[in-house]
């Protein structure tokens, strides 16, 4: 988590956890400046900016 930043503005991200075991399984990372969410699914943060997501 401490090595993740917004891929657009490189700013801080706000973590919101919806499922957690010994690690975060599902949740979101939110950049308030860009008003953009980055999903965490199956324990994998997806840091691709929206235009690179398929």
């Amino acid at each position, binding site marked *: 988590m401490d090595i*993740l930043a917004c*891929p657009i503005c490189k700013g801080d991200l706000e973590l919101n956890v919806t499922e957690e075991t010994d690690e975060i399984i599902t949740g979101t990372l939110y950049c308030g400046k860009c008003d953009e969410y980055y999903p965490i699914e199956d324990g*994998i*943060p*997806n840091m691709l900016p929206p235009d690179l997501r398929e």
Partner: protein
Amino acid sequence: MLEHSTHHGYQIHLADAVYEPAEDSYLLIDAALNEIAGSNRRLRILEIGTGSGIVTAAMMRDAPEHRYAATDISPHAIACAKANRVPAIRADLFRGLRGRFDLIIFNPPYLPTAPAERVDGWLDHAWNGGADGRAVIDRFLGQAPAFLADRGSILLLLSSLTGIETVCEHMASVGLVVREVASIRCPGERLVVLRGSLSSK
């Protein structure tokens, strides 16, 4: 997912559309383990383009005391790496990361690839290095120094097909001291691992 065993004895999961570990993977594992051997502090280690995750998984097995993270742009690769217990982040090279790392490892897509030679799907990202083989390597070298800790280093796997001298010059131009730390001859190419460090240790 498919089970896969290698001559190094690493058992890893593989998946469709994920690069199957080969000589290049094993050469990089050996170079990376050699690089961190004898380190008496906890290193921050980042692998870019981890694919199946074999390089980081092997390092985590043999040197579990360090901190690891690995990225890949492919959803198939990053899911496979995660299945191999690698701390996986889906990202385009360093984009979406921050911080400084003691060691950055990259087995890049290095094959010179004409547009007509492209393959459909995510596997193309595993080897398509653009017309000169260096498209992704050049992007990586433009970004990597900003993510290196003091006295940190990168380990970059390359092929003689990629233009090793040209990459060495690029590495030097971004302030890295370059040294070849491993090599192996394979049919049709020579594979090398280049070490680039911010200062010569």
